[in-house]
């Protein structure tokens, strides 16, 4: 059986539905009923600008030393202003990659000592596609 995973925007309503400990109206109510808070919503925690946020999958090992592993899920926000040492999705000469931004030395850094820094030259059509705000590494099931 395969379950279709809900998309981020639908999950927003599904997860926060409040619930009551006691199902039956008759009998003693739970002392906690009046104090119940809403459930914790992962979407609220992870995503600040839904319209500007998208997901992508990592393939490769050049960012492993900061925990972005091969196969993990990235949450990217275009509305966040990239700054020095931001992890960004960058486009150089038409190719998208994930790297750390080094504005002081105008270059892109990997997090893996097998990869050298990539300089950002003036004519290379460099553009930041978004800032990586979370990386989700899964340890169970197909990630």
């Amino acid at each position: 059986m395969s379950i279709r995973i809900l998309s981020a925007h639908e999950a927003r309503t599904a997860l926060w539905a409040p619930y009551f400990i006691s199902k039956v109206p008759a009998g003693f109510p739970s002392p906690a009923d009046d104090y119940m808070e809403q459930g914790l919503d992962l979407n609220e925690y992870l995503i600040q600008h839904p319209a500007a946020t998208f997901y992508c999958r990592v393939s490769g090992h050049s960012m492993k030393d900061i925990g972005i592993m091969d196969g993990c899920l990235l949450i990217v926000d275009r509305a966040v202003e990239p700054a020095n040492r931001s992890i960004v999705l960058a486009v150089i000469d038409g190719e998208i990659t994930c790297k750390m931004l080094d504005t002081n030395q105008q270059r892109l850094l990997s997090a893996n000592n097998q990869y050298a820094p990539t300089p950002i030259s003036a004519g290379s059509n460099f553009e930041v596609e978004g800032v990586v705000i979370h990386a989700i590494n899964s340890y169970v099931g197909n990630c």
Partner: protein
Amino acid sequence: MRLIAMLAIVDCNSCYASCEQIFRPELRGKPVVVLSNNDGFVVARSKEAKALGIEDLQPFFKVEHLLRKHNVAIFSSNYPLYGDISNRVMTTLRQFSPNVEIYSIDEMFLDFDGLQEDLNEYSHLIKQTVWRDVRMPVGVGVAPSKTLAKLANHVAKKHRQGNGVCVLDKPHKWEWVLRRLPVTKVWGIGKRLAQRLAEFNIYNAYDLAKANPKIIRRHMNVNVERTIKELNGIPCFALEELPPAKKQIYCTRGFGHKLTEIEPIQQAMSLYVRRAAEKLRKQNHLALTIHVFIHTSPFEPNYYSNSTTVKLPYPTDDTRIINQAAKQGIEHIFKSGYRYLKAGVGLIELVDKKHFQFDLWHKGQPIKSDHLMNIVDKVNRTHGKGIVHLASEGFHKKWYMRQNFTSPAYTSRWSDIPIIFC
């Protein structure tokens, strides 16, 4: 304090083509075309594709050699992607006004009444924000009325100096534009109306603005009179809060290839019925009558076209009942020996569900049907359109439309999200 209340129209440049460039940055600045349902016609072109001389609504087979020669990127329509991107654009635009109207998949009106900021700067901020957050290039037209705003938007697109923004906040500014545009460019004025206006010596938009509204109303209709007022800076068409419920709901599609047997046509019809019934339930109406039609290609000899209306046993929104009626309709009009190109169903007599009362003497939709349709809609909403459907739609849809160049649904399917090479 601004004396005239202004409004803006923001629209996406080459919407579908631009959507295809969002997750393909290497295609930005390159020629891109998007094809219609069935890969039949060119329905969207990037700026660069337009520059190559590829015209709108050209049949694909006619321009294919030109597209291949210039390495134009070709895409089938990817509505899940376009719908999602459109939502993102609309959400992003809402922060710029408390009162907005979504006009179409790629256009939104924004009320600027009460805005203190400089109109040009604000419009540029809107452009920059939509590009930053969604990677969609947009044009902004600002004016006192919807009709003028649409013209301003047209100017914003055509004139490079404006950088995609055009503000017509004074009469001399909009009159300058009106003098230079033919009357067919005015919102609501098509070829036919333009011909009739020519009889009154009205050729450009300025001529129309200066025409006598009462005379025009007598010879045409009240909407043209309103258009004249709008061209003079007097708003007559207000921003609508909600789109009006449709008075008729149609679902019509061409087949992937021509069909000669009744069975595949019935299968296709079941799909169209399902889609139409979903829209019916969404707007809380019941249908009393349906209209079905089929026809062969008008470009081939031996043209056959027929249609019929079928009255439903009782006012209903139940897909199964409507499907039965549609089946009967097709059986009635189908003739063998023809190669059918297209079919469709229309739900034509609609009543508001809440105004309808069933009683002992008027047979109506059983509550069980309501519940079943409710559950079907819920499951389809959560797990994907069409997951629950009638078996009569068939399992191997040989008649389903051709789509040979579809891009991934980057933002709505986990299996389709972009892969980043690190």
